[in-house]
């Protein structure tokens, strides 16, 4: 019974997502900050290696079941994410995914493509910041 409800919710979400999809290409830079607790992120020019390490650990523990850097699994590949999205958007997506896939145009578009809603993995704001630092490191490496 509950299963059917979940599916109904899924469909209800998928439909507006498909409509909202118009004109948004997820491979391009998206200017929005998203919806959620994170309003402004101030980034230092240099990376904090401690934070990178912590972020990588959390990524392995809580994200790799659905995300890899270069390959679509359940969710999109995440290499280059810091170039395509603003830091606030990334952190809001991690911290507040349920509301994001209902309200943010890009997140809605993504749900329409991936069908599984990006899940709340119960990470703290600090952890989300560490994840962001890890993604920055990944994207910095690529430059080399």
């Amino acid at each position, binding site marked *: 019974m*509950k*299963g059917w409800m979940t599916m109904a919710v*899924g469909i209800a979400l*998928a439909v507006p997502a498909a409509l909202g999809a118009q004109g948004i290409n997820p491979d391009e830079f998206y200017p929005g900050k998203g919806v959620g607790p994170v309003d402004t992120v101030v980034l230092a020019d240099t990376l904090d290696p401690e934070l990178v390490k912590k972020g990588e650990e959390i990524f392995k523990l809580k994200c790799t*079941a659905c995300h890899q850097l270069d390959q679509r*699994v*359940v969710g999109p590949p995440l290499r280059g994410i810091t170039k395509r999205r603003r830091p606030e958007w990334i952190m809001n997506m991690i911290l507040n995914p349920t509301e994001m896939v209902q309200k943010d145009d890009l997140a809605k578009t993504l749900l329409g493509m991936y*069908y599984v809603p990006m899940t709340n993995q*119960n990470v703290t704001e600090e952890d989300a910041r560490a994840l962001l630092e890890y993604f920055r490191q990944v994207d910095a490496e690529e430059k080399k």
Partner: protein
Amino acid sequence: MRGWSWKWGMLVAVAALTMVGATKVRKLARDAAKKVYVAPGEHDEFYAFMSGGFNGQIGVHGLPSGRLLKIVPVFSVNPENGYGYSEETKPMLMTSQGFVPWDDTHHPELSQTNGVPDGRWLFINANNTPRIARIDLATFHTVDIIEIPNSGGNHPSPFITQNSEYVVAGTRFSVPIPQKDMPISKYKGNFKGTLTFVKVDPQTGMMDIGFQILVPGFDYDLAHCGKGPSHGWCFFTSYNSEEAYSLLERHASQKDKDYIAAVNWKRAEACLKEGKGEKMRVTYYHNYWDEEKQMAISEKKTSVTILRPEKCEGMIYYIPTPKSPHGVDVDPSGEYIIPGGKLSATISVFSFSKMINAIKNKQFAGEEYGIPVLKYEAVLHKEVPNLCLGPLHNEFDTRGNVYTSCFISSEVVKWRYEDGKILDRIPVYYSIGHLMIPGGDSRKPWDKYLVALNKITKDRYLPTGPELAQSAQLIDITGDKMEMLLDFPTMGEPHYAQGIKADLVTQRQVKIYPLEKNHHPYAVKSQDAVKVVRKGRRVDVYMTAIRTHFAPDNIEGIRVGDTVYFHVTNLEQDWDIPHGFAVYGAQNANILIMPGQTLTLKWVPKAPGVYPFYCTDFCSALHQEMQGYVRVSPRNAKTKLYWYWAGQEQK
């Protein structure tokens, strides 16, 4: 002409009256409907916990809607979520008689602080293979089960003391203690009962047997403990003081009075301190849930402390009470003790302070096996004649009223226990057993609703063949007259029930198990760590589940003759995203794994082949895709152990 118009006039008048009547009934129904209506998305005001009787479970309903919210498996295995089937939960049902997959639950009892339900735990008895269970209301899981030794059936249980110091147990069926082979006809004087006090740890809730009082071989039926001034005492009804062992329906109802056993447990504690207890060797089990390891531990215990009444003067007295009493209930002030004499139309109200005086002044009418019997009149506050037929059980409001369920006359009677005045009656459908007011056996009843727990259903709902659900009825008790609001079905056979204001429970809810705190020895917290390990004929699969795949999702190299353990960790960390796991031909059940939890299903494949497994809980739009295969080779095949997921072929 005249006759004609007269007749028509009558007809019109009758029709008009009928219409007025119908409108009135409709209006009443509308008012009642409003009172039980909980709008979509809104919550009920109370939780009601209904014992499941012969289903061995607890039904959780919301009040006033009556909606069924959950069935909590306690003493019975539950294929729905794998309770009693998964390797982690099997030890919960161990007893001195081996693994017992079923029991008969009768009386739920909420933990209390200062005599008021506090929403921490719920206790319930197993009547058949005597046990008490504790459910943690943060998770609604059974977390603790203790077996009661020296008992042939645990009915008057698990009533609680004012600060949850103890939950009690008593023998419904007396037996030889210690058990031995002997002729049943030697019952009288040789069969014994025990009244057991099970200690509850104030922090963890963990149960442990404090002591057992050895008592004459009557049938102990129900109990309640004192509060306020009577805190420190517990009261147990008994019947069959005739000590009959055959055709009890006749032989056990000969005397016009049986007894309430009044036990001073503080006195018992003092006697224990003075070294008056005796150690007795006996086997029983204590099973509890280790929250960190997420599995049940089963401990075998080998000794209890017995107290004999003759060695601890002042610990126990008998109060004569009308024929075969059932319930015994203590009013919110703690002064009045009211039994239900189920074969008597007269109900007696006893006074605690009079009892203390009677003891002080040695107003005894005799003794039973050395236990003083108090003079009935010396303890009596009031006799209320013609209350009803078959009074069974009482609950209270905050206005000095008591509500009695009457099985034979099938009604609830509201009366004042101070002066015995009968105030109101309402018929219930059909044949009520217990009744329940949220907090109605505590110091502070939330006296808005009363639930009648009826034993016979007959035509109350759409018929479902010979076997019917039980029927509960919700009654508004806020006015002078009781008002019937709602019928709702309940599962199994609710005997007693408990109710509590919802916020006391909701504020403690656990939504997920944090992965960092999962210390299950077979947990895998990251998909990269999944593996399959063979040790001889045993294969352990360390598996993960997350929307929408298992890892690994393909396993080869299993052989006929292997025993495979699937240890599945649900990597989700979001509320209400369980995954299920089922595998072809499994001879146990499926398992339902909550976010962050690890559960284990044992599987013994019978023949070579390729067998699917899949997720049973609709978790997402791609749930149907959540599947995998196990390849099983012949017993002596050389197929290598090999596994992979999501195209990530390993080694």
